């Protein structure tokens, strides 16, 4: 269960942290709590898993990871968990999810692969395919970012 302070802090965290010497002080003011309470609430929300991650998010196009692709796989259901964990272990894989297939869409495992170039991503996918022993996959290169934003909860 969330405490009242935690709820207020979640709302205040819908905005980005300011780049000032005491950013949590500014956030605490917005939440109507003390800086100490805000810091304790953020630590506790992290510990309880409400906050998955706290920190800076980069534009990876600018940080040298220019290419990204969604690599989708067809995995026998009984092997899904084992293969998913194995793919997740690859460094170039940033996201790895199992999703049920849909009509006309047989893929059930999804991995987001980042690399310096499409060639590198193709090579990485081939390497992963060999590693997990699955040849049924497709690579969906991203051509354009149409939207990227942060979810505003409780708003």
């Amino acid at each position, binding site marked *: 269960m969330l405490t009242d302070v935690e709820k207020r802090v979640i709302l205040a965290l819908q905005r980005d942290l300011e780049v000032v010497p005491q950013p949590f002080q500014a956030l605490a003011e917005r939440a109507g709590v003390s800086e100490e309470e805000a810091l304790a609430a953020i630590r506790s929300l992290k510990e309880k898993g409400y906050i998955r991650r706290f920190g*800076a998010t980069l534009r990876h196009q600018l940080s040298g990871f220019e290419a990204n692709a969604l690599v989708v796989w067809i995995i026998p259901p009984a092997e899904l968990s084992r293969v998913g964990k194995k793919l997740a272990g690859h460094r170039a894989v940033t996201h790895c999810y199992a999703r049920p297939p849909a009509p006309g869409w047989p893929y059930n495992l999804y991995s987001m692969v980042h690399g310096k170039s499409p060639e590198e991503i193709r090579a990485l996918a081939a390497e992963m395919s060999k590693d997990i022993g699955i040849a049924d996959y497709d690579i969906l290169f991203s051509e354009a970012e149409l939207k990227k934003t942060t979810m505003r909860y409780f708003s």
Partner: protein
Amino acid sequence: MDSSKTKPKTGNRKPKTALDRLDRAILNEIQSHFPIESRPYEEVGRRVGASEAEVIRRVQTMYETGVIRRIGANFTSRKLGYASTLCAAEVAPEKLQLFVEVVNRYPGVTHNYLRRHRYNVWFTLIAESEERVREILTEISQATGIEVLSLPAQEIFKIKVDFPV
């Protein structure tokens, strides 16, 4: 392990904004180990060997040049009671603009990518309930005449958004 020291230099792949060693050290700290304390940039400075003022100046510059998209919290939407799904659609070129306009209007559409595939538009949707997710997808289909595949996660093996720089 610090991979930045062993990685070969890729001179032709430099980001548009040149980052020096101190910038990179700061980025790695504030991505993965952002200090949850009163003076976080002072602590970052201690770790990378720079003053608090210097760290703040660097972070501000990287914000302005767009290297840093944002600093803050990423929530586990499911724990907050929200439902989410990944959506795919096969959109003909002449309908693309309309489709993207309709889809992007929803605040719960947080990521949307054009991909090189028959299913060429891929977006994520977060909403306050499963029912609201279904409603939005119906609205999109009705407004555009395009069917949307909904592919909700069944199991999450990895979410990692930090990049060694």
